[in-house]
């Protein structure tokens, strides 16, 4: 087992709001991610996935308070000063493939110019080699060289995503953080994009770590080694992708509901909506929507052995034992 590239311990992020209110966007997240490994972080929109990513990039807004620890390559990210973040973290230790590439790209510069600028900032590419290096960087993310002279608004969603991916791959950071990298892409492009990310994970002597935040469960199934499920700011289950998507399936009722909602499965939504992160119940945050909830669930379940639930779905072998 290789040493962890990313090590997150009891990470919490709270936002201070008007009138003494707080929003608990991330609470008590703990996980490790090794080189050559891909962890998919899945969950409902607004559950805190992107805030977790922002914390790892030192991109939280001023009203955020963090607790716990997150180290990449041995460097503590929480509380690091802006200079350290800019010089040693962003693009170099942690590279971001963003959620809305169109917004992430600079609107007034062509894709080629942005690739060249990032190459200048992060690599020692000689000036006269820049164009060729930009073409090669574009190629890595399947961005067509014929479009290097285009501005971001002239690209379809798919091409904008590939341009942003090409930018992220330039610094060869040990941790690649992809936030909804496939939104708006067709299935072929989703597959090509995530396969490319997977290839980047497997690249080199030790490989890189990939944290992919996604709501696309098919994309997660395709490339992830493990899956982390987030609900209302907490990681409620971390499991091997193989058993999560196959047999016996997830153990947490929320994760089971999420999979059952897929159009290739039951296509039935989980009833209701997630609670507000500024107004979380004391007990299990899923209780109001959970068909397994009992009085015990008014007490918050601890996260232990990859699961936070008082009444997880029984794995087949254990079910017979429990009912014997």
């Amino acid at each position, binding site marked *: 087992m290789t040493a962890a590239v990313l090590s997150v311990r009891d990470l919490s992020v709270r936002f201070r709001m008007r009138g003494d209110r707080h929003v608990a966007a991330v609470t008590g997240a703990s996980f490790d991610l090794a080189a050559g490994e891909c962890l998919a972080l899945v969950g*409902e929109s607004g559950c805190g996935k992107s805030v977790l990513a922002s914390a790892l990039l030192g991109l939280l807004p001023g009203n955020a308070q963090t607790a716990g620890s997150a180290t990449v390559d041995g460097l503590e990210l929480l509380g690091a000063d802006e200079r350290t973040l800019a010089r040693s973290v962003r693009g170099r230790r942690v590279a971001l493939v963003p959620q809305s590439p169109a917004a992430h790209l600079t609107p007034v510069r062509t894709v080629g110019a942005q690739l060249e600028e990032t190459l200048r900032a992060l690599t020692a590419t000689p000036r006269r080699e820049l164009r060729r290096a930009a073409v090669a960087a574009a190629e890595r993310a399947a961005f067509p060289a014929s479009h290097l002279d285009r501005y971001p608004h002239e690209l*379809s969603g*798919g091409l904008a995503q590939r341009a942003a991916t090409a930018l992220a791959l330039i610094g060869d950071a040990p941790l690649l953080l992809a936030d909804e990298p496939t*939104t708006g892409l067709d*299935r072929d*492009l989703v597959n090509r994009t995530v396969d490319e990310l997977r290839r980047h994970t497997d690249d080199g002597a030790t490989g890189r770590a990939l944290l992919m935040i996604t709501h696309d469960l098919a994309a997660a199934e395709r490339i992830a080694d493990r899956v982390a499920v987030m609900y209302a700011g907490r990681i409620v289950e971390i499991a091997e992708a193989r058993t999560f998507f196959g047999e016996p399936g997830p153990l947490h009722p929320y994760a089971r509901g999420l999979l059952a*909602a*897929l*159009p290739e499965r039951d296509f039935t939504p989980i009833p*209701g909506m997630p609670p507000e992160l500024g107004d979380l119940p004391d007990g299990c945050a899923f209780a109001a929507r959970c068909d397994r909830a009992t009085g015990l669930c008014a007490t918050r379940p601890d996260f232990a052995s990859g699961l936070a639930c008082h009444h997880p779905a029984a794995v087949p072998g254990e079910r017979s034992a429990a009912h014997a």
Partner: protein
Amino acid sequence: MLELDTITAGYDRLRPVVREVSLTLAPGEAVGLLGPSGCGKSTLAKVAALLHRPYAGRVVIDGEPARGWRHTAPRAQRTAIGVVFQQPRMSADPRLPLRDLIAEPLRATGRRDEVPARVGELADTVGLTGELLGRRPHEVSDGQLQRACLARALVLRPRWLICDEMTAMLDASTTAALVAVVEEYRAAEGAGLLAVGHDSILLERWCDRTVHWQTPPTD
């Protein structure tokens, strides 16, 4: 019927992204339009929603050829069609609380008196509760905002619905919930649907039939 008749459209007359495409929806029918990224699906959806003027071809709504686009489209035609886009943040006025966002089409068509009842009813349907309705777009999640955008698209009881990647940025459960809302509406009102997207598993499960757009991207 909603007829798209030999539509040619795009952003550059010399290189149209949609070339002579025809598609007809029967009343109450749900048609899924599938195609690769950049093939021009969204452009065609905007033409069908009377939001983008084609270079050539006709849009015929319940027998009436479209006579204008965007604000020049006759009100009766504009209000016959409800539209939901992929990016709720780009289509929602950031200053409006969700309640007013949903009510906007009613106000714009001089039907203020219907606002309280209709907005209440639709907020229920899409699962938005009282406190959320008072928040502005930046204070809610993508899923919650898309629920509001869907309610707004339904507020005038359109006979046709156009959903361009309505669920592309949503999780599986919110996707299933919003599709269920559209289907309940269609069952109650007999409305037709053009659902545009690239998720064939979703559109095949959702729609009566799907059309695969094969044209490779022109760029």
